[in-house]
């Protein structure tokens, strides 16, 4: 299958925000050693290269259909991208320290298109509710015809985002809500197609008028499933895994006081 590499590299180099970048160790497919690589996460794509300044990209991992799992048995700061499905791969990765591991796991968890889509739908719903409550008239996301053509939106978040200086520090456990776990694999949410047929209003050849409002939320696809429930479930599941990871790390830290740790990653 042809992947049109240029489109991927162009996306990487364009001014839209990089979601996360840094060094990680990547486990080789056929043996147990790790290579240190510079990873760049943008959207649902995880690129890697030897060094940050390199123009040559070694590869890309499309992050759809995978589960991110902290992986302490493998090594101390390890985690995996597990693609669910027959014959599909697991990518073994490792960070330099616990904070790195936690922040990468956190970023990769919420990187998929599916995840973002659920989140946007949920926020759209909250937005409509907030407007109703405040009594404001309808104002749609101001996407112009140009914006619809991907050049720029009038609501312009800016061409550069500053990376947050602080890492994702230990979060308040309350942020992850209740304690029930999601029994089924995450993939079931994505593959269940509960969408009702979409009804798009007819428009003229310009799709939307220049500088006019984008279709209101009500015109977006009606989803048969409860988006709040879906996203909360996803969120609970992610939260549980990260909480487990933290608990394990804290426990290990107490147990290993004074114990000199050996190198768990073979850098040779």
């Amino acid at each position, binding site marked *: 299958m042809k992947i*049109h590499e240029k489109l991927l590299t162009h996306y990487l180099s364009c001014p839209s925000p990089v979601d996360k970048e840094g060094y990680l160790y990547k486990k080789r497919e056929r043996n147990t050693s790790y290579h240190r690589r510079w990873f760049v996460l943008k959207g649902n794509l995880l690129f890697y290269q030897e060094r940050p300044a390199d123009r040559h990209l070694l590869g890309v991992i499309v992050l759809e259909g995978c589960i991110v799992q902290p992986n302490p048995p493998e090594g101390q700061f390890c985690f995996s991208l597990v693609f669910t499905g027959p014959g599909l791969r697991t990518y073994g990765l490792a960070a330099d320290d616990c904070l790195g591991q936690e922040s990468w796991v956190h970023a990769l968890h919420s990187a998929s298109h599916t995840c973002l889509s659920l989140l946007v739908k949920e*926020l759209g719903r909250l937005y409509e509710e*907030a407007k109703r409550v405040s009594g404001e008239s309808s104002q749609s996301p101001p996407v112009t015809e140009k914006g619809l053509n*991907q*050049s720029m939106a009038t609501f312009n978040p800016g061409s550069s985002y500053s990376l*947050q200086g602080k890492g994702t520090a230990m979060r308040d456990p309350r942020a992850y809500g209740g304690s029930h776990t999601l029994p089924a694999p995450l993939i079931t949410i994505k593959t269940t197609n509960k969408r009702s047929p979409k009804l798009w209003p007819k428009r003229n050849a310009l*799709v939307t008028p220049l500088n006019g409002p984008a279709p209101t939320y009500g015109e977006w696809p009606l989803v048969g499933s409860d988006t709040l429930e879906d996203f909360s479930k996803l969120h609970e599941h992610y939260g549980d895994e990260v909480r487990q990871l933290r608990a394990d790390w804290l426990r290990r830290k107490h147990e290993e006081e004074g114990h000199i740790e050996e190198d768990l990653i073979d850098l040779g």
Partner: protein
Amino acid sequence: MRFNEKELVSLSRQPSERAAELGMRGPKKGDVVKKRLVKLIVNFLFYFRTDEEEPVGALLLEQCRVEREDDLAFSIAFLDEAERKYLFECDTQEQCLDWIDSIIKASYEFMRKNLIFYRTEIHRLTGKDPLEQYGISDETRFQVNTGLPPLPAPPT
């Protein structure tokens, strides 16, 4: 450049946002229109030869321009090369418009912009940051730039 081909092919077999048999023409001079099964899944446009299991190719739908070409056709231009376009021929005007809409809304960057808009507006209307409850309020991907009202710092 390596990529997770098996996983991407597996993705192409998932339920799609939109799928149809369309006439498809490549961007190069001399390319002709060919019948392809076109499937829109997340921000990828997969295209298959009819009755084949594995897609011929996958187009990433970011940084592209989608335009109506005529009554029944639309084009997608990539890499800021406005003249190098992929052309798609539909059966009806409605189908053509539906595809244009879906492709535009499939972009990750489009969704990100909408999310930031909603987040800012909800905060403005309610005083609360809707992303806090998910513990992702300081994720870089959802940050608003300095031109807009600042959101409160997340709780420490």
